[in-house]
Structures are given as C-alpha cells and as structure tokens.
C-alpha cells in the first residue's frame, strides 16, 4: 500500500523528515520502501488496522504528537427508506447505506481529495468513486458506490453457492463458482461483496445521486476471492485483514463532508444496521494465559 509522506506529516506536530518516519516505521515492524515522498508499505497480515493514513498515524502516535482531527458532517441525517434484506447476517453483521444527491459534479477537486490524487499520482474515475477511494485511504474502510438512479427495487445480501456469469464494473466477465457473498437487486447480482461491483449499477462521470454501501464482512467470506477471479481489489485486501465494524457512522459523515466541500448537496439520508448481539464472555483461564504470555 502506498502512503504519501505529506499525508502523514500534515498530522504530526513535530514534522519529522521522510528518513525519521521511515526509521520509526521499521521500529514499529512496518516494512516499506521509500520512493521519493511515498512509503510503499508491506504490512504483516495481523495489522489490517494499519491499512490507512489514520491506522499508520495511530502507530506513529507512539513516537510523535499526532492530530487525528478530520472534519465530519455533524448534521442530523434523515433515515433512509430502503427495501433491503440481509439473508447472511453472520457474514455481514454490520451494514449501512447512505443516499446522497448533489446539484452538479465538481469540475475539479480541492483539499485532501486533490492532494490524494496528485501526491500518489493516481488516475481519477468519477467523483463519488474517487471520494470512496480517498475515504478508504484515509480511514481504512472500503465503501461501494452504486448509481442511485439504477437501484430500484428489492436489494438483498446473501452468501450463496453460485454458478453464473458476472460482469464487473471494469467490464471483465467472470464465472462466479461455489460459495460467494453477493448483493442482489431484484434477484440479479449487482456486487461481489467486498471485492467488486457490477457494471450495471456502477457510477459514471454523470452520476449525481449515489447510494453508498458501507459494510463489515467477516474475512473468511472474502479471503481468496480476488485471486480466484483474478481481480485487483484493494477493498478485498482490507476486508481479508478485517476492518473496524464500528466505524460506519464516522466513515459516512466524513464522506458527506468531503462531498459537501466539492458540491452542493440536495438530499441525503442514512441507515445503519447492526445485527451483532452485544455479548462479552470473560474466560478467566484464557485471560490468565494471555497475561502470562505477555
């Protein structure tokens, strides 16, 4: 994962140099290569929490004074009315949807969104997908953007045994086989969950109304899928290493804030669904064993 030095140092009070941060990253166990002002990070599989600017800053806070403050939308949001059924709550125990409509698509980006593309030398897709990619880079939570005008009818999520063709948003046709977690729109697959969406519901440069899906998928359901179908997916890389199941509201409010910095929002509404039962069982012998090992 590539992370720009300027995106880290802008949150660090001491303003350390590239070399100083590099040395601290090695001390933290984060292998990387330096390419100019970019850290090409190679995280160990147990550090899915570090796959973002905020994640890495949390670790660097051991050495520096780090300011995590990122503006979010603090408005009260209407509840989104959506016909959604989750048929595999064990696979997806937390899911949220945000519907947002803007007056017009911005001609250019500013602030952190502009810096994300210029510092990392990335190509732009379309406005909402670009915001989604930036949020994933900043907070670590992948989101999926559907063109809201194409989402009419019953939406459902389920992990199923499949044997069918699916066209990804990049136009690649793949044969879904065996167990796959997928989203359906009126019984048609529109998203291979956590990996890639379909062409039929994807956003384009004219999209002004978007449905943002923000979900937690258990890593076991996602792992190996991008390799199996030969799809480059940063989202699946993150879901495989686990994401924060409780970050949805922060992610969505940050998403709205960045959109609002670029365009006038006409309408927005949100629904957050948590199916996870809050249970905590303290197993004393296990705890003692952990304490002994420390």
């Amino acid at each position, binding site marked *: 994962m590539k992370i720009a030095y300027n995106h880290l140092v802008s949150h660090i009070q001491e303003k350390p140099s590239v070399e100083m941060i590099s040395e601290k990253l090695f001390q933290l166990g984060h292998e990387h290569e330096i390419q100019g002002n970019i850290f090409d990070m190679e995280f160990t599989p147990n550090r899915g929490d570090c796959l973002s600017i905020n994640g890495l800053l949390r670790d660097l806070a051991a050495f520096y004074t780090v300011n995590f403050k990122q503006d979010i939308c603090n408005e009260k949001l209407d509840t989104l009315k959506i016909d959604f059924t989750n048929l595999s709550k064990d696979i997806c125990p937390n899911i949220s949807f945000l519907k947002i409509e803007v007056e017009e698509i911005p001609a250019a980006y500013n602030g952190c969104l502009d810096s994300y593309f210029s510092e990392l030398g990335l190509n732009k897709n379309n406005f909402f997908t670009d915001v989604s990619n930036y949020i994933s880079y900043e907070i670590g939570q992948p989101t999926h953007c559907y063109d809201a005008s194409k989402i009419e009818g019953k939406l459902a999520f389920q992990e199923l045994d499949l044997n069918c063709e699916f066209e990804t948003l990049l136009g690649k046709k793949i044969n879904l086989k065996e167990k796959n977690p997928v989203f359906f729109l009126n019984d048609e697959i529109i998203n291979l969950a956590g990996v890639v969406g379909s062409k039929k519901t994807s956003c384009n440069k004219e999209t002004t109304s978007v449905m943002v899906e923000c979900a937690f998928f258990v890593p*076991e359901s996602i792992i190996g899928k991008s390799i199996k179908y030969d799809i480059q997916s940063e989202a699946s890389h993150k879901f495989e290493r686990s994401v924060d199941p409780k970050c949805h509201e922060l992610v969505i409010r940050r998403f709205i804030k960045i959109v609002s910095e670029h365009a006038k929002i006409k309408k927005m509404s949100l629904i957050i669904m948590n199916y996870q039962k809050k249970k905590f069982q303290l197993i004393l012998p296990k705890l003692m064993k952990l304490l002994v*090992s420390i």
Partner: protein
Amino acid sequence: MSNNKDIFSPKIIKDSGSLHPINHMKDSIMSLLVSFGFEIVDGPEIEIEEFNFDMLNIKKTHPARQMHDTFYLEKKSNVLRTHTSPVQIRGMLEKKPPIAFISGGKVYRKDDDSTHLPMFHQVEGILVDERISFAQLKDLIYKILFSLFGEDVELRFRPSYFPFTEPSAEVDILSSEGKWLEILGCGLVNPIVLDNCNIDSTKYSGLAFGLGIERIAMLKHQVNDIREFYKSNLDFLSQFK
C-alpha cells in the same frame, strides 16, 4: 582413418564433482548449530494441514493458507510443506523439554521471481526449556550471524509477526552498499503452539528461528538472481567448489 583431431567436438570435463552451493551452505549452517548443541530432526516434505498450519497457530484466514500461496495435494488434505516448522511440531510431540532441535530441507511456496522460488531450502531451530528469554534468542542469533558473516557485520532486529512466535522479529544485516537486507525470522514460541504440543506453557518457554538458505547463499556469494542456483550451469556452479 584420419589422424586429424575434431576441434568442434565438446571437451570432456574430467573434474571431480562437489556439493551444490545450496547443499554446502545448508550443511555448514547445520554443522554450526549442531556445535551449539542442537539435535537434527527430519520430517516429510508432504505434510498434513494440521502440522503445517493448525498446530502452528496459523488460522484459516491467514494469507499463507490460500491456494495461491500453498501447493495443496489430494483434495486439500495434504500440502507440500511451506516451512520446516512442522518438523519441530513432530519433534515436540515426541519428546518433552528441555529440547533443542534443528531441521533443514526443501520447502514449497507459490512464488517465482528473481528473489523467490517455488522450492527453496530452510533451516529452522527451536529451543524449549524453563525460563527461555528473548535475550537468549538475541545472543544465539548474534552467534549464528557472526559465524556466517564475520563479527564486523552490522545487525538490526525489527519487530514482525509470525503466528507461531510471540513476540516475533526479523533480522537484517547491513550490506556493503549500505542497504539493510532481511536474513532471518525469529521469536519466542507462542504459548499456544507449546500447548498444542502438550507442553505446559506456564512452565516452559521457547525460542525459534528460521533461515532461508538460498538468501544467505545469495548474500555471501553476491548472486543477484536466485534462479542461477538451479540452472545446472556448470560455469556458474563450479565457482563454489
């Protein structure tokens, strides 16, 4: 019959053979470790998943267990071992502490480029006894690397992650070009692994380390492409006689 020599016929090389540089390196590292008191144990190259992954605390979700990293055999019941650690599991199940094992041999992963091969060699060691500490591990690593690269070599320990050791570290050496090069992985044996092998983790602790033989050979002999070792190029191989 002509007395003229055929100058185009290939020359018959009558030199005696010698050990392959990788075998030579493996043997010398194992001899060194035996001199420190380690006992050599051996195990199969075709392993059951339980010994290669489960007993070593490698969870089902770990990337190393995916089809793209591991050679699975016979409908996923067996694997070509991805490291020599399962040999140590077998050793720990057979003997009770104090134990000091080393195992060396071929391991298999789905990798193939100038620094990785689908088959390569490892030497791994484990020491389990009462009150084994990270200080002892560091001391041992220094001794091994000083023996291999000389006492002037500069080392650094970096925190890392292996499911079977906690804490874990990777060790780098400073090359003559001023670059840090990863040379081995090590750590204190995860108590879960000891428990899996019926060793009381409240009484015993352990240290473990693993070295990639090809990597050490590349560094020692300044070979840039790992594949050179396996091209059967006698001009290349005879340099290491």
